[in-house]
């Protein structure tokens, strides 16, 4: 096995789609600029050439229409991947996502299944303004019927996207644009990563840091710094928020007795809020201090770089939160 091969996340995602499209002729890809251009970040490069315009479709700017069409195709025998350029545009399709994609299986008593995967690239912190900056992930976590995936490495991205495409349930797959060029080991042999299995990205005994997406990298950086001060932090990457691997998080807290939860969303009713509530309910007696949240501020994202820095979670904020527990 050539496990030493390193590719970047965009390449890993491209491989995942390519392999699944080769394996399953019902897999199609639709979205804005996914075909001729190969995606605004090149994630679907070459797919049009290999699979043709029937299966790789550039769409008009009609998010409501083509997400609805993706659902209509999914309930009638296709296995579509729909790309929404950035999550900020998901609200244009939110009606179809929340009222149909998430619920058709339940509302029809299991007669319809919606094997649709929606991919979207978070561009938080890029400086493009507040409507090109959101993840909106909590909206989807709060919508029963959707699975929610938040990879942080090329390896996870590939294995999870393949699982998402094969999953019969609807999946919201959140990519992070600033991770696309990050390289990491990705085996050439096929592999899948099951949903609902967190990955411990770094082991530690004194503190648990739970983080998602690019914030896993910030958490790892923070853990390195904390180690210099004698604090051994464990970094847990849930990888999927629905289903959520509570067990790995709880077990880690039982070992370390302290937790910082890092979230790329506003704190109110966010991902960190939910994980904090679970820990409070299920591991309260093991805690040596309060559950700390490092989330974005509850404000729209500004454009000025120094203000963005104040708004978003980062290594320094994680370290500050962690130190309060010692």
């Amino acid at each position, binding site marked *: 096995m050539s496990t030493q091969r390193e590719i970047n996340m965009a390449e890993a995602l491209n491989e995942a789609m390519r392999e699944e499209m080769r394996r399953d002729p*019902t897999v*199609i890809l639709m979205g804005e600029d996914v075909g001729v251009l190969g995606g605004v970040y090149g994630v679907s490069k070459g797919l049009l050439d290999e699979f043709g315009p*029937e*299966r790789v*479709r550039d*769409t*008009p700017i*009609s998010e*409501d*229409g*083509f*997400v*609805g*069409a*993706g*659902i*209509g*195709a*999914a*309930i*009638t*025998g*296709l296995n*579509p991947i729909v790309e929404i350029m950035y999550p900020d545009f998901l609200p244009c399709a939110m*009606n*179809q996502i929340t*009222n*149909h994609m998430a619920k*058709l*299986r*339940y*509302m*029809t*008593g*299991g*007669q*319809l299944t919606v094997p649709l995967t929606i991919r979207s690239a978070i561009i938080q912190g890029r400086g493009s303004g507040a409507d090109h900056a959101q993840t909106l992930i909590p909206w989807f976590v709060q919508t*029963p*019927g959707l*699975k929610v995936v938040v990879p942080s490495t090329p390896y996870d991205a590939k294995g999870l996207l393949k699982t998402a495409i094969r999953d*019969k*349930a609807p999946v919201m797959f959140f990519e992070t644009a600033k991770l696309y060029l990050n390289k990491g080991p990705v085996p050439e042999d096929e592999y899948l990563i099951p949903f609902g299995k967190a990955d411990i990205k770094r082991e530690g005994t004194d503190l648990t840091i739970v983080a998602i997406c690019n914030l896993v990298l910030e958490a790892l950086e923070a853990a390195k710094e904390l180690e210099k001060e004698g604090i051994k932090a464990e970094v847990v990457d849930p990888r999927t928020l629905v289903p959520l691997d509570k067990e790995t998080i709880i077990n880690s807290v039982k070992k370390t007795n302290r937790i910082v939860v890092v979230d790329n969303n506003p704190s109110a009713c966010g991902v960190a809020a939910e994980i904090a509530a679970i820990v409070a309910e299920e591991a309260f007696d093991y805690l040596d201090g309060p559950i700390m949240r490092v989330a974005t501020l509850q404000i729209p994202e500004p454009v000025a770089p120094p203000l963005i820095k104040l708004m978003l979670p980062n290594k320094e904020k994680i370290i500050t939160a962690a130190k309060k527990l010692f």
Partner: protein
Amino acid sequence: MEKGLHNEISNEKLVSLYREMVRVRLFDDKMGEFYARGLCPGTLHLSTGQEAVAVGVCANLTKEDLVTSTHRAHAHTVAKGTPMNVTAAEILGKVTGCCRGRGGTMHLSWPEVGMLYSSSIVGAGAPLAVGAALSATLRKTNQVIASFFGDGAANTGGFHESLNLASIWKLPVVFVCENNLYAISVSVKRSTSVKDIAVRAKAYNMPGFAIDGNDVIEVYKTARIAVERARKGEGPTLIEAKTYRHHGHYYGDPGTAYRTKEEVEEWKKGDPIVRHRKYLLERTIASEEQLNNIDKEVEEEVAEAEKFAIDSEFPGPEELERFVF
């Protein structure tokens, strides 16, 4: 109506159009009665007066062809061939219902006869129809998708996006706008930029027909053009069938706060079932006795569905979390 249209409709077909309309009417009447008896969860939207549209279109579809519907879903569901018993049971929220008591009156689905789904989000069914048509095209199934919606839906973004998508991708969709002149209380005159919604087809480079939606024969013939076109891979069509609901928007709405009594009475005179019955009798296509027999047979079918629905159980707690994923 276009030249060269096949004017030949067999007598058998003409009689079956009558039967189907009576089925829709009597089924809806029964559901209204259920509602009045306090048996229905939620609200109820009846299609009384609009039967010709669902029936005239569905009579052109095969069992494999698909339909998307709306909050006013019973007519399309019954006309597409969903058994009355599972439909009635669903409307009462029973576990024997087509959606096991999870969908109810506005969310009916029975894919095995092509009743794909009815969405109660106004305008949201059209994108599903576009996707189903894309799927049919890529899987080469030769299915046609009929998407029913109201005049109100024709002002949603989803409607416009869907017409454009179906047009650029040449998909086998028949968009059927049931223009009953009102979206709840708002008259099309106050809500809609054009007199005939069908002219919007032009903007999406597809044929559009504005027709008398209370004339089941005209609906049938027009739908046939559209279905054949779709089947041949020539793309979508928009049909606007002008019609009227005899009841208010929902069961219990007197429908008089925004419509005059005279208007309602005038439209009731054009009842599509009365009209078609007269047509059949005047041309001796069917006898009085034959039609009365049909009425009786349908009454029996409805009575059986009633018994089935009433006797069925509600879902138990073991059903609660099934099919979430």
